[in-house]
């Protein structure tokens, strides 16, 4: 229920929350403007009062705001007073916009009904924060992971990260706002105002009992005539002081609710805490963004359904979080329709076998959410499968979508297939998976599906491409010509980013992110790990030319000045983070690791496997320089060609003791290279670090792999 509750609340109230939040953000600058240049109040109230009265004849009332601003009223002027000299200067009236924004913020211009509506909105914001936090924990894979860098990409990830940053402030604003509403409606036990004394001395000229800090003074109103008294308000209460004797004639102390209200006022408005006010205002500014990004996440869920459920011979159910799995499902549905089939496409949450009378097979394409949970469009399908009275007769195939660098790759697809199997549900095909939206993985599964259905099925999935930039090659360093293994480090000019992009971080990238390159004559991008960050001011990759490789061939043939179409895809799972680093790479896998060392603030040690120092020792000069600078604290090389073949796994074993120690101290391990090398390193590390498991480290964000 958490997700629908969160979504519907956000969708329905998003606009109103935005209005209240933006008006609040506008008001949040007032305390900062007010406290700008306000001097300190390090004096007693008596001193302050005597300075103000000496410098401003005819003062009738002195007011001290929680922010420390001193205002004096005379019969015909309002003066802002410098508390040090007592000198007053006329104060401009607050702008009309302040009253306008306050009334909008409190009551949407609707009086008491509006105040109640705004209170409901504040309560809704609390609910959104609570449900959002729960979703965040589910998404991240546990409460501990909430504070870790968020996985995934697109609106869902940005929504999660922005919400996480603003949540505490939004909760604080909502809670204090609710309290203030309760106070306005007199629902709290506030102190009564003091009764005016029945008798005054009738004398004048006493020294007032004002020997407390001036910052605690709130208001002092001077008597109008001999029968009047001083009216005094401080943080400790309010009452009347006799002008002839200085005696306190009446006094009322604040109740606990009054004290809480004073704090709520301070925290909500920032009056007396200008910086906090600005922080809360900034957090409020995220509200429209959260509303819009949340709505966009939702609209990704609506798709074309092809044939109706009644008429379908093939039912395709989709479990998708960000929406990319839908694209694959549509490619599949189109291919089946082209073969004369009647596919029906629906979210996994629409699982209802009794509504598919004509269906001959069920195909489930599903991603995994966070740490193995059901993705957005899956609903509670798992429990519905588990509680089926008996398994449907039509056979089932499950295809999982995920990212192998995540700790629980395709865990939800596995669980779903296992639940179906336990029910005795007939299987059309074994469980298969698609790694990082690989079109190749998907095409392979399509061929297997075609074989199972007795038809030729070709699934050419082209994921919608992000906008590309044209990158011009600046320089290249060549390697490996003598081993018939041509490779190069290519450095491109970074695409220009406008001021807005720089401010918002758009187009920023880090080593470990992916550079998608569109080779001439193809619409399918190839991905390379970036060996530089946007701060370096250039885009660098390390590539090897493969026999017959279209993209690597074109890249390797580039001369300085040549251009290539490319875009960046974030890969936060392979960012450096801030822990000490153990970097393990082989071949061109050194690229992102070198980029990480170049940009890292923390110490790093590198295990680097290559064939021969003379042929493929990429980044040799840089590594030597970084070692001399002390940013690379250990460099362990392994050469697989030569008299004594040595692999990176061997280098790890030699340093087993040091590795265990570094991991015990909290180091993060990052592995980059070919898939075989990755498997070898994983096995070796599991050995060395036992009983600590890599799964465990991965969950703590301390083990990351980028293998290809």
């Amino acid at each position, binding site marked *: 229920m958490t997700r629908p509750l969160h979504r519907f609340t956000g969708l329905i109230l998003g606009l109103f929350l935005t209005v209240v939040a933006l008006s609040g953000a506008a008001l949040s600058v007032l305390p900062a403007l007010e406290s700008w240049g306000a001097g300190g109040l390090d004096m007693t109230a008596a001193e302050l009062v005597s300075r103000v009265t000496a410098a401003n004849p005819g003062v009738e*009332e002195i*007011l001290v705001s929680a922010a420390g601003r001193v205002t004096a*009223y005379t019969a015909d002027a*309002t003066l802002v007073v410098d508390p040090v000299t007592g000198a007053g200067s006329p104060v401009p*009236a*607050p702008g*009309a916009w*302040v*009253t306008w924004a*306050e*009334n909008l913020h409190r009551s949407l211009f609707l*009086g008491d009904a509006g105040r109640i509506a705004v209170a409901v909105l504040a309560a809704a914001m609390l609910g959104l924060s609570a449900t959002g936090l729960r979703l965040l924990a589910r998404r991240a894979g546990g409460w501990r992971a909430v504070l870790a860098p968020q996985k995934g990409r697109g609106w869902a990830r940005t929504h999660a990260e922005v919400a996480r940053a603003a949540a505490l402030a939004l909760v604080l604003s909502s809670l204090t706002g609710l309290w203030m509403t309760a*106070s*306005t409606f*007199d629902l709290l036990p*506030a102190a009564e*105002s003091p*009764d*005016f004394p029945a008798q005054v001395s009738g004398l004048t000229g006493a020294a007032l009992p004002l020997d407390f800090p001036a910052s605690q003074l709130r208001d002092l*109103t001077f008597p109008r005539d001999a029968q009047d008294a001083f*009216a005094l308000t401080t943080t400790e209460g309010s009452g009347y002081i006799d002008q002839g004797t200085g005696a306190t004639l009446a006094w009322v102390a604040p109740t606990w609710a009054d004290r809480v209200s004073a704090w709520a006022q301070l925290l909500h408005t920032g009056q007396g805490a200008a910086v906090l006010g600005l922080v809360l205002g900034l957090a409020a500014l995220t509200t429209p963004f959260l509303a819009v990004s949340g709505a966009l996440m939702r609209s990704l869920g609506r798709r074309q359904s092809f044939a109706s459920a009644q008429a379908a011979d093939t039912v395709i159910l989709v479990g998708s979080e960000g929406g990319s799995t839908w694209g694959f499902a549509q490619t599949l549905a189109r291919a089946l329709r082209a073969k004369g089939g009647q596919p029906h496409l629906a979210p996994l949450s629409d699982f209802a076998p009794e509504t598919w009378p004509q269906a001959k097979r069920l195909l489930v394409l599903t991603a995994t959410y966070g740490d193995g949970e059901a993705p957005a469009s899956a609903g509670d399908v798992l429990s519905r499968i588990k509680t089926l009275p008996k398994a449907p007769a039509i056979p089932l195939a499950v295809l999982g979508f995920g990212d192998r660098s995540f700790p629980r790759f395709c865990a939800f697809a596995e669980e779903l297939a296992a639940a179906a199997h336990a029910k005795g549900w007939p299987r059309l095909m074994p469980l298969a998976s698609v790694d990082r939206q690989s079109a190749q993985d998907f095409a392979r599964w399509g061929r297997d599906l075609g074989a199972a259905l007795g038809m030729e099925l070709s699934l050419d999935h082209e994921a919608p491409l992000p906008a590309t930039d044209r990158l011009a090659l600046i320089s290249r360093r060549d390697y490996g010509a003598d081993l018939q293994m041509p490779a190069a480090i290519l450095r491109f000019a970074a695409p220009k980013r406008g001021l807005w992009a720089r401010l918002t971080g758009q187009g920023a990238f880090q080593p470990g992110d992916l550079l998608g390159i569109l080779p001439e004559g193809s619409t399918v991008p190839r991905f390379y790990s970036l060996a530089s960050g946007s701060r370096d001011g250039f885009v660098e990759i390390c590539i090897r030319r493969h026999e017959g490789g279209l993209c690597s061939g074109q890249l390797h043939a580039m001369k300085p000045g040549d251009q290539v179409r490319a875009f960046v895809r974030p890969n936060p799972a392979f960012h450096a983070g801030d822990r000490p680093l153990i970097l393990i790479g082989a071949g061109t896998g050194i690229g992102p690791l070198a980029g990480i060392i170049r940009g890292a603030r923390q110490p790093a040690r590198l295990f680097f496997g290559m064939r021969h120092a003379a042929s493929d020792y990429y980044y040799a000069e840089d590594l030597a320089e970084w070692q001399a600078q002390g940013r690379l604290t250990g460099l362990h090389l392994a050469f697989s060609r030569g008299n004594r073949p040595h692999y990176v796994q061997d280098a790890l074993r030699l340093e087993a003791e040091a590795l265990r120690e570094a991991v015990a101290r909290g180091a993060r391990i990052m592995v980059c290279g070919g898939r075989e090398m990755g498997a070898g390193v994983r096995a070796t590390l599991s050995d060395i670090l036992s009983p600590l498991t890599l799964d465990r480290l991965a969950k703590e964000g301390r083990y990351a792999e980028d293998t290809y």
Partner: protein
Amino acid sequence: MTTLSQVLTASTALAGALVLPGLAEARQVTLTTELANYGGDGAYLAFYVTDASGKYMGSLWMSGGRSKYYRHLSGWEQASGGDPAEVAGITGASVGQGQTLTLTLDLADSLFDAGYVLHVDAAVEHMRDSPDEIAVPLTAAGVSAKGGTYIAKLSYKS
């Protein structure tokens, strides 16, 4: 720009609130209060009557419904004791700047030309309280008076 924001009869309230000698004869009084453009939110206004020595006789009207803010009408509060029951049933909304409040009251004949004084306190959020902004004698001939901070003009005629 002025608008007519309030027309009402306060006879019942007065009969209960004011202890007056000989309440036999009453006359209808129209009380008009024009607010200045003081650049703030709606004003709370307290209308009340004292005798010549300042002794509280009763309240005529309260503009502003939230009793927690009545402490800012300190003239009324000191005179009346600040009990919200004093204005129960004779309370309306606060009055916006530039607006005109018109009250139609049935007042006892004996209140006029007998030294009684009509007081008006005013208060606006974020702005200085203005107790006793207006104090005019109750006379059968009627009165027109200029205010101070928030009230541009007050007049009544019977």
